[in-house]
């Protein structure tokens, strides 16, 4: 049991390294992932350690990257590919939606695609246009994909290892503003699997449901609320698809009130799906309508304006305050 203080970026790097050691068929490729180690250094040192055949740079074409991964997965490999930034992954959208997501189904399970598409996503790092999108809802809407997103350092390692071992394609969304957040972790400790949400904080009064970059904000809000006398449960989804109805609904039923916190725009999004599910399943346990704290329905703003777009502690606390605590 050795606890080390490492960042999420380092944990992801270690997960790739350990997966490549564990399984010769794991290959990593994408833009600038070789000598440079990726623009966020997630693949740092992998080419040096495993050689050009295992971790390599590709031409600058995302559909080609994902499409090639499909073929390699068809032919016995476990490719892990990096989309350099959320919004740079859109050229690959057709490959993801028409092939990655559908291959198993259209071939009646004869062709499995054990592949991982890593996508650094979300804002909060002062990125200029096209560098801060939250694209998870596009993927979550597509049947056949598995969509996970870690919010902690331990999960970054554990979920990525599990995603690489997963028999089906996984869209692995990395909250880039958390890349540098450090935690004391024991990487050998087993983490809950894909499809399992985790309660990060217990509290009797209301539930915050969050994932990825929104989780630390929700936890901070719960801390402040506690100081003000209101105890909040915080659920970390971890896995958007499959969705853990059981854990989420159990928390909502216990507390009777809920706020969904997500960094993506709210309209027709993962957050709206959560509200719909919770309302459909927990209606009689609810003392108030489920509220949401999301981004506005606008393109992600330029760096000088992004603070107005991101969920904040104040907005979460205001939403909690609005949960009809008294009849009026």
């Amino acid at each position, binding site marked *: 049991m050795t606890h080390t203080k490492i960042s999420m970026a380092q944990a992801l790097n270690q997960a790739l390294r350990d997966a490549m050691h564990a399984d010769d068929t794991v290959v990593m490729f994408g833009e600038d992932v070789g000598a440079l180690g990726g623009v966020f250094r997630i693949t740092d040192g992998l080419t040096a350690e495993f050689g050009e055949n295992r971790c390599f740079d590709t031409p600058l074409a995302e*559909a080609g990257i994902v*499409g*090639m991964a*499909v073929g*390699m997965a068809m032919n016995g490999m476990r*490719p892990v590919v990096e989309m350099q930034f959320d919004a740079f992954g859109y*050229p690959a959208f057709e490959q993801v939606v028409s092939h990655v997501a559908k291959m198993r189904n*259209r071939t009646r399970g004869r062709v499995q695609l054990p592949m991982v598409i890593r996508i650094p996503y979300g804002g909060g790092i002062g990125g200029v246009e096209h560098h801060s999108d939250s694209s998870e809802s596009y993927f979550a809407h597509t049947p056949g994909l598995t969509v996970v997103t870690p919010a902690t350092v331990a999960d970054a390692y554990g979920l990525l290892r599990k995603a690489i071992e997963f028999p089906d394609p996984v869209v692995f969304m990395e909250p880039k503003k958390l890349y540098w957040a450090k935690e004391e972790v024991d990487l050998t400790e087993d983490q809950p699997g894909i499809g399992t949400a985790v309660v990060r904080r217990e509290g009797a009064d209301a539930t915050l449901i969050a994932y990825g970059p929104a989780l630390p904000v929700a936890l901070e809000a719960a801390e402040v609320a506690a100081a003000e006398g209101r105890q909040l449960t915080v659920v970390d989804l971890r896995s958007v698809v499959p969705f853990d109805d059981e854990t989420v609904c159990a928390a909502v039923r216990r507390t009777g009130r809920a706020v969904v916190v997500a960094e993506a725009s709210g309209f027709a999004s993962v957050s709206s799906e959560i509200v719909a599910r919770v309302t459909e399943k927990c209606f009689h346990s609810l003392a108030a309508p489920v509220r949401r704290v999301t981004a506005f329905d606008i393109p992600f703003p330029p760096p000088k304006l992004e603070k107005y777009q991101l969920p904040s502690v104040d907005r979460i606390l205001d939403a909690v305050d609005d949960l009809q605590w008294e009849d009026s």
Partner: protein
Amino acid sequence: MTTVEERLLPSAEPVCLIDQNGLPHEHPSYELPTKAALLDGYTELIRGRRFNDQASALVRQGRLAVYPSSHGQEACQVAATMVLKEGDWLFPTYRDSVSIVSRGVDPIETLTLLRGDWHSGYDPYAHKVAPQSTPLATQLPHAVGVAHAARLKGEDTVVMALVGDGGTSEGDFHEALNFAAVFHAPVVFFIQNNEYAISVPLAKQSAAPSLAHKGVGYGVPGERADGNDLAGLLAVLGQAVEKARAGEGPQLVEAHTYRVQAHTNADDATRYRQDDEVTPWLDRDPIQRLTTYLEQQDWLDDDVRRQAEAKAAEVATQLRDGLMPEPEVDPADLFKYLYAEETQQLREQAAFLRDELAREEA
């Protein structure tokens, strides 16, 4: 030393070893295939044509939802698979059913997509044939991936990736050729240029001198062949496969052929082209010219003809018998194959549909 131009540019004219009158032509770079290969090809052509025409008839009888026929393109269809070895892969499009059958896939399983009882009916690993791709050119990067993985594993697999003239306009065509070239992947990209993408003629599709010239931009050698000359296609594709297998990287071959029928039965070709454009192509028919040549060589004896006819009759019977009964479909299958482990939500939705059906029956 060969120049870049010599290495990459296609022949000035499409390679043609047997012309439309059945006359053989010498070519400096390609040899006429052997008698045995041409006789095999003859049988495959006869069978492929029968497959096309029987499938089209079955659309009219309501047994297939749709059939994009390769009538007139059978030389391309059968040559693409005749040049492959057992361990090689084929990546077909929706118009390449004859190629798939020629590769050994069961004819009924081949037509599952077009019959509509599932999206893909055959096991892609059984004959190393990828599912038919409907979104144009999107299968080409997969072909590169299969080839690259094979190369990393030290296997001498070659991948034959099929695409049409319209497909060459797609970004995935460009990305696949570029990736294949950069990774030196053993892929033969085979363009069947049949002059039409549904209604849009080649002139509105590309301003390139030929589609084979597109290889130049990627450093991929291009070659073009008369798409209705089985002999030329076997020679050109055979050489491309050999080069790819020998480690010379990807190859691009364009076959000049013609879609003599409409895009599918649902299409009305009279809206965009005149009969006098189609008529000359009927004289360039791939079967007719090979037959003439084989007759002139005195190679087409009754045995060969009988054998070809028997195989054609067999496939026609297979299609009629196999497609006449209404296919059995199971609504439970709708949820079964999305994930290795079914999600809770899909289990609930499957149960919903089960209950709904049970109520209907009650």
